[in-house]
């Protein structure tokens, strides 16, 4: 096994073990998204069916976005508690293996948050005679997650070294994730309202989403090494 794969396996297994030991970190984003969904449900019910799909998309992505943000902002919390992050830097793992292992863990975490949010959203809105359960929308949400997770991970690593972390994170995170979210919301609308397929959306909003995913994943992979390398 190459050094890269060996380190990737060790780091990923370890980070998953650490996350499983910190289950409350998963629970709080899910509870947050549940609260938002309940608030939306009571605020908008009974709802005009014409606006239902739009509200469904807005509430789902809004809950998901903020729930993920809560999770991402804490991704380095276990590494920071006893300064294991610094020790890890002295061990000089291959930066790409380090990034990818964290990225895999954060993506798995995000998939759990997305699945529960969408599941709850469908559950709360099942009384309305419009089907919103769509694998295509789920796939769009996962694609949005891939871009947001890469960016969230990069910014979280950046914040470990920054002095003004409380201000800097939202200042960078929110504007940079906007294109991904807009593309994901537009894709979902086209799928649910206009019954468009993913292949039809490839030349428009879905294409834009994939481009931003690629940019953020490549950028984060390259810059993460610069942030964590020893001098």
């Amino acid at each position, binding site marked *: 096994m190459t*050094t890269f794969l*060996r*380190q990737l396996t*060790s*780091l990923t297994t*370890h980070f998953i*073990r*650490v996350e499983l*030991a*910190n289950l409350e970190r998963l629970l709080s984003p899910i509870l947050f998204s549940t609260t938002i969904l309940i608030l939306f449900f009571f605020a908008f019910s009974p709802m005009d069916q014409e606006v239902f799909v739009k509200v469904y998309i807005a509430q789902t992505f809004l809950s998901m976005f903020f729930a993920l943000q809560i999770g991402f902002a804490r991704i380095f919390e*276990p*590494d920071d*508690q*006893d*300064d*294991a992050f*610094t*020790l*890890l*830097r*002295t*061990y*000089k*793992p291959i930066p790409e293996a380090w990034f990818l292992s964290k990225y895999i863990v954060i993506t798995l975490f995000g998939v759990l948050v997305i699945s529960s949010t969408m599941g709850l959203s469908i559950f709360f809105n099942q009384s309305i005679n419009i089907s919103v359960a769509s694998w295509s929308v789920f796939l769009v949400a996962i694609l949005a997650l891939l871009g947001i997770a890469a960016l969230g991970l990069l910014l979280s690593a950046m914040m470990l070294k920054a002095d003004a972390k409380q201000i800097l994170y939202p200042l960078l995170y929110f504007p940079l994730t906007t294109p991904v979210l807009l593309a994901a919301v537009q894709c979902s609308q086209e799928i649910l309202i206009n019954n468009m397929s993913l292949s039809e959306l490839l030349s428009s909003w879905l294409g834009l989403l994939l481009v931003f995913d690629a940019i953020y994943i490549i950028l984060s992979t390259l810059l993460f090494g610069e942030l964590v390398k*020893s*001098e």
Partner: protein
Amino acid sequence: MSPGELLHLSGPNGSGKTTFLKIIAGLIAPDKGSISFHDTHYEYLDSESNGHYLKISAASNLRFWGKLKQHHLSNQQLDDELLTWGLSNPYISQKLAVENFSTGMKRKLALARVSLSSEKIWLLDEPILGLDEKSLNLFSKKLAKHLNQGGCAVVISHDLSPIRDSITRTLTFES
């Protein structure tokens, strides 16, 4: 530095000993000058933290750091090291999260990691903080063994008793 050498960094608080050690460890870039290594692998221990993942067990921590350095630790090696440091109780080593350890136990676990690493260079900043008398003697023996086996170490310690016999050179910092 040559094999068997122990460089002791001494000086008053705030004189730059820790900064110097961090520069050697590659955690801070020097303003000028450079440091060259024959062997870039080393084991570092910070004065204010131990580098543990607090929510998992002592054994899981040691296994992780070992795997990352490609030191395939057998269960026997792990058990022996934990036994040496008085952390061998299965509940303490396998089940209890490190966050529940006392300050001294956390330090002992960090020293167990250093000892298991088999790296030639040890960079230790106040390694004996929080250790009891028995552990001080143990650390002293471990350090002497490491130096006898051709390793070397750079140590910052205000308490000289456990390292005095091993010191080969002292670098004194002025405030």
